Structure formats: C-alpha cells, structure tokens
C-alpha cells in the first residue's frame, strides 16, 4: 500500500491515434472550429495591438493627433534606455516582485495546509482566506488608505497608543513599501491559497492514513508528504505570482500614486504617465516593448529551468 502511493503515478497513455499517427480528419476540423473564437479574439486583441505597438514605438506618435506622426527610428528606445526614471521604475517593479513572491507563496501554502487540517468550519476558513481576493483594488486601497492615513488613521493611532514611534506609512519610502506590501499580501494571497487548497484535495487520504499507521507525526506528514506532492503546484504558483507581481500597478497607483517622490512608481505607471498623461504614445510604446521583452525573457528562463529540473528519470520516493 505504502509503496504504491509513494511513487509518482505513471504518465497517462498517449491518446489513441490512427495508423498514420494522426488524429482523424473530422476531429482536427472540430478542434479548429472550436478554437476559432479564441484564435480570433487572440489575434484581434493580443497579436494585433502588439504589432501595432511595435510599429508605434518607431514613431513620434501622440494621442492628440490622428496618424502615426513622424518617423524617429530607434531614438524612442535609446531615450527609454537612457532614462534613469525608467530604470528606477523597473527596479521598483522587480523589488516588489522579490519581496511579495516568496511571502505570497509561503503564506498561501501555510494557510492552505492549516485550513485543510482543521476539523470544523473548513468551508468558513477557505471562504475567509479567499474573500479579500474578490474585493476590487480600488476598494481595498481606500480601506487601507484610511487605516494608514497620518494623524487620524487606525495604524498611526495604534502605534501612538502603545507608545511606539509612528511610522509614516504613506509619506516615507520605507513606510510606503511596507504599506503596499502589507495590503497586497492581505488582498491577493487568496488566489494562491485556492490553487494550493485544490492541490491538497487531490492528495489521496490513504497516503496520510498509511503514514499515520507508520507513526508519522502531523509535522512529518506535512513535510514529507504534503509539501513534496504539491511541488508541481508550487511551480505553477511561483511563475503565476512572479508574472502577476511584475505587472503591479493598481494598488501602488491608488495607494501612493507612485510616491513619495516617485520612489514606489512601478514600470507600468511610468508607461501610463508618459504614454497617456503626457500624450507621448510612441515613447510609451517603446517603454512597453522593453518591458515586454524582459517579461518574456523571465518566463522563458523559468520554463527552461523547470524543464531541466523535471527531466531526472529516477523515481522519487516520499519517505
């Protein structure tokens, strides 16, 4: 019993194929037909704008005039790459990712395990942990802004009441980062929590039963069964979280406006500020392309890394 459960399940057999190794014609036609709506939307709203953005980035395009504007070659790119504010903003997005990703993954895993191990009110805990995720960012920002507000907010008052020095949550750089990260943790960890909760439910209960019979303590069960079996989910959660964190915009924009002194402005706000507020569409498009290339590079590197680490053929055992 133990041996069966502790080895990885065998890969599913490949789908049935015809003699020539291809699926029947009608199947292919149906596949194409069923994916057409997606392909149309994909081309219309993703590939199209992307190509348009590449074209725009070589022109002095503006949103106040019709047409592309003057051809400026690669000068938009050289200006973006030489703008210290662009690199500051880029660093802020990366810093946000570096801080939030580990916290959001570990906390989600921790709370998912805890919520799955409680005996009573499991549904309540699941709901409670996931609930913040469905609140719109504008609402979350408004609530937290009230709590952080200097002089009159809840947090400054609490700190003052117990005699601690009152941190300037939205007026100082370190306070601003703390404020944004705390709010983001509370608001978004529900998504990873749900992914982990689903994965935990897929772990067959007899594994735990067997482990319990063998005398494994709850902590050993978590460390040696749950966490290793959740490894594929962790990979997924990590990359989703990295990409989501790199795309940070709304909570920083709503809570701090990128301040104080633009010290928390993420790169998407930089793009928004130059492209829309200053009407410099071409320049904004160039900044977007630079950022796009960086995100694609990160995703590709991640998948390459995962492939390499997934290849070892030796069957892993849980104990």
């Amino acid at each position: 019993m133990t041996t069966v459960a502790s080895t990885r399940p065998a890969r599913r057999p490949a789908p049935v194929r015809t003699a020539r190794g291809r699926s029947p014609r009608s199947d292919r036609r149906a596949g194409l037909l069923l994916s057409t709506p997606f392909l149309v939307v994909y081309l219309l709203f993703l590939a199209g704008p992307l190509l348009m953005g590449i074209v725009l980035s070589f022109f002095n395009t503006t949103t106040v005039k019709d047409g592309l504007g003057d051809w400026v070659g690669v000068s938009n790119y050289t200006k973006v790459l030489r703008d210290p504010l662009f690199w500051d903003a880029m660093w802020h997005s990366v810093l946000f990712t570096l801080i939030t990703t580990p916290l959001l993954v570990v906390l989600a895993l921790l709370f998912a395990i805890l919520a799955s191990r409680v005996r009573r009110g499991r549904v309540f805990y699941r709901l409670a942990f996931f609930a913040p995720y469905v609140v719109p960012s504008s609402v979350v920002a408004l609530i937290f802004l009230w709590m952080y507000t200097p002089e009159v907010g809840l947090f400054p008052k609490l700190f003052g009441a117990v005699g601690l020095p009152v941190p300037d949550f939205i007026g100082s750089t370190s306070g601003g980062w703390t404020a944004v990260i705390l709010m983001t943790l509370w608001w978004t960890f529900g998504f990873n929590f749900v992914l982990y909760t689903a994965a935990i439910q897929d772990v067959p209960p007899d594994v735990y039963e067997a482990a319990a019979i063998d005398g494994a303590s709850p902590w050993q069960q978590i460390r040696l069964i749950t966490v290793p079996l959740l490894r594929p989910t962790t990979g997924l959660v990590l990359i989703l979280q990295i990409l989501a964190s790199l795309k940070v915009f709304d909570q920083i924009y709503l809570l701090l406006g990128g301040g104080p002194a633009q010290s928390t402005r993420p790169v998407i706000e930089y793009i928004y500020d130059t492209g829309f507020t200053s009407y410099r569409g071409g320049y904004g498009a160039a900044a977007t392309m630079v950022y796009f290339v960086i995100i694609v590079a990160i995703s590709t590197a991640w998948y390459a890394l995962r492939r390499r680490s997934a290849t070892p053929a030796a069957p892993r055992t849980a104990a």
Partner: protein
Amino acid sequence: MSGAMARRRFLALGGGLTLAGGLSACSSPLASGLTGSQPDPADVVFWNLFTGGDGANMALMENAFRTEHPGTTVEATILGWGNPYYTKLALATASGTPPDVGISHLSRLPLLAASGLLEPVAETGVTELGVTPDRFTPAAWKKATVNGTAYAVPLDTHPFVLFYNVDLAKKAGLLNAAGDGLKPMKGRAAFTDAVKAMKEAGARYGAAMSITADPSTAWRWFSMIYSGLAGPVVTGSGTTIDIDAGAMQETFDFMQSLTGPGLMPRSLNGSGANALFSTGKAGFLFDGEWQIPSYRLVKGLRFNVVPFPALLGPEPVAYADSHALVVPRNPKRSSARTAHAAQFIKSLLDHSATWAHGGHVPAWLPSQRSKAFLGQSPQRNYVQAAFNARYDPVAWYTGAGSDFQNTVGATVIEVLAGRLGPKEAVSAMRADLKRYTTARPPVTMK
C-alpha cells in the same frame, strides 16, 4: 451518436443566437460604434468630466437649457476625470467623431489648440450671441487665448484658497470688526503669526493641507507662493527653464518654516486634511474652493473661505485653473449643429450662478455680478482671486493632473516633509523641469 447530435444542436443553437444578436444590434450603439456611424445623435452632444456635486449642478444647467430651447435635444456624457477624459476627447476628435461641445481645463488648452483639435471661438458663432471677451474675467480669457486666438469659452475660475475655522479664528483674535472675514494681513511674518495664533487658540495644528501622495496640491501651494516673486518656471512654450533661484529658495524656506516647527503636519493626505479641518483640529486649510460643498455637509463646523493674502511678494496671487467650454474641430459638422452648440454654450454661461454652488467663481461677468451669485457665501468672498489668478505655465506638458504636476509636485512634497533642504530642492526642481524641456514634444508648439 447522441453525443454528436448534442454537439451539432449546441453549435446550431449558438450560431442562431449569435446571428440574432447581430441583427438586433444593428440599431444599437455597439453596432454603430463598430461601423463608425452616428447613433441618431442629439442636436448637441456634450462631453464633460463632472461627477458628485459638480455633476449635479451641470445636470441642472443642462435641464435649464432644455426648458428654454424645447426643440433642441442635448445628450450629455460624463467621462472619468483626468487622463481618461482627455485621451478620449483627443482620440475622438482626431478620428473625426468628436462631441459638439466639450469641457477642458484651461491649463490643458495649449496642447489641444496646438494640435488643431479645437475650433477658434470666433468661428463657433458665440460672438454673435453676445459672448465677447470684455464680458469675462480677464485672466481667464487671456488663458483661453493661444497665439492671439481664443480657443475656449471660460466657464469659471477655481482658485486655491484659504479656508478657516470661524470659532478658532475668533479665539485667536484674527477676525475683523464685523466678524465676517479675517483682519487684513500681508507678508510672510503676518501670515506665520496668524497660523501660530490658530495653534495657540487650541487647534492641534495652525494649518493643514493635503501633502502626501498629492503632488497637484503641493504644486498649487508652491506655485502660488513662488508666483508672488517671479514669473513662470518655464518659458518659450515650455522649451526653456526660467527659474529665479533666489525666489525659489525663499519659497521653499517659507514652506518649511510652517511645517518644520509643527505649525502644519509634514505628512498628511487628503482625507487626513479633511478630518483635521472638519473636526476643528486645524485652524486653516489650504485647498481648492471646490471643497466647499463637502465641508457644508459637516455638522457643527463653522468655516469661511477667503483668498490668500500676499505672502512673499507685494501683491496677493491666486493659483487657479478654469473649466472652459470648447468646440472640438469637426469638418463634417453642419452649420445647424454649430448653431445649437453656440446656443448651448451661451445658456451654460447664463446659468453659471448655478455652477457657482460648487464653489467656482463664474468667469462670465454678467453671472459674476448677478444677485444669484452675490447671494452665495463664501463664494462671493474670493472673487478677487479670479482676477489675480496665475495658471500653470504654457507648455505641452503642463496642466491639471499632468505628469508634469506629478513630477515637480513630488519635489515640493519632499520639501514639505522636510527631507529636502531649500537649496537642494532648487536643483531638484531644475532637474525635474529639464526632463520636459528636453523631451521630444508630441506636437510642435509655436
């Protein structure tokens, strides 16, 4: 077999629904949007960015027009304030489907005019209806004029003003004999003393303003003080930095003399400023007059609003902006539609005393001098501010909610928070401005 049947039936059903949806959408805004045709437009299509109290007042003014011109229909669209509005206005006009009348901040006008998106006022037919330059607050009309051509009809002036708590001011001995205003004061020392007196009268702070994460308000405060001493920070349509370093250093020094010793909080956001002023914990509030309606709702708060006295220079200065009516360029617009647009603009001016309930000073002098406006307090107190108004400097990058205000305002916030000394702040400001004077403008300005 039954599975295949179900699939076919499902596909057929889906196709049928899509078709039906497509047919019924032919007369809808969606379909007309996709085909680029006009969806049975009203006689006047009006775009604005007003919500809340301003939105309600604007709706009253639209209804007044409908009552007076029963044959003319108006369709008003409210778009999100700031970028969403200006982006849509510009794109709709550039692509040939603009509204007949739109709202623009005068500080945002130079770029729109230089881009050729606006009809000159003289060609809209409003002049024939009696809308002539001499009947407007001069500062507003001047700001509506770019290179000698007027491109907008100013609706109001909304200056940065001085709110004060009446009870605290009385205790501090700042009220005049009649008790309906502040004693006259002038200059840095007198103003600082007044703020001190407010604090000593029992307020936690002598004055408060929104600083943190609010670069626009910080910029307004800075711009107003600095304008008392020197001209605009950029000249030549925004191509040249023109800083008076001494004046700027003095300005920053004055700002820090209030926040430094705790007469004002160094870090406070908009809701914090509201909370302090409306609970009597701050004697003065530095903010735009558009906050009047929200303080009216506070029970037990007795407040008044006056223009700022002269602070550093010899004369009082008011930092201000204006809402103005523009006619976006549309070569396809019929002369009948243009005539309706002109009538609509004239009607809004005539009813701008209603608009003043939101705190704004009507730019249209007949309204400004009407009983309907002069009966409004505290609005009538700061009419002079409209005449002393200083707007953002002329450039493609300046104006309400612009990236420029965010950048230079961030430097001002650093000064107010005490993290940047006056001298370093001048060089920081120079660096901020250089970003814009050296950037490639989206549109060439004369």
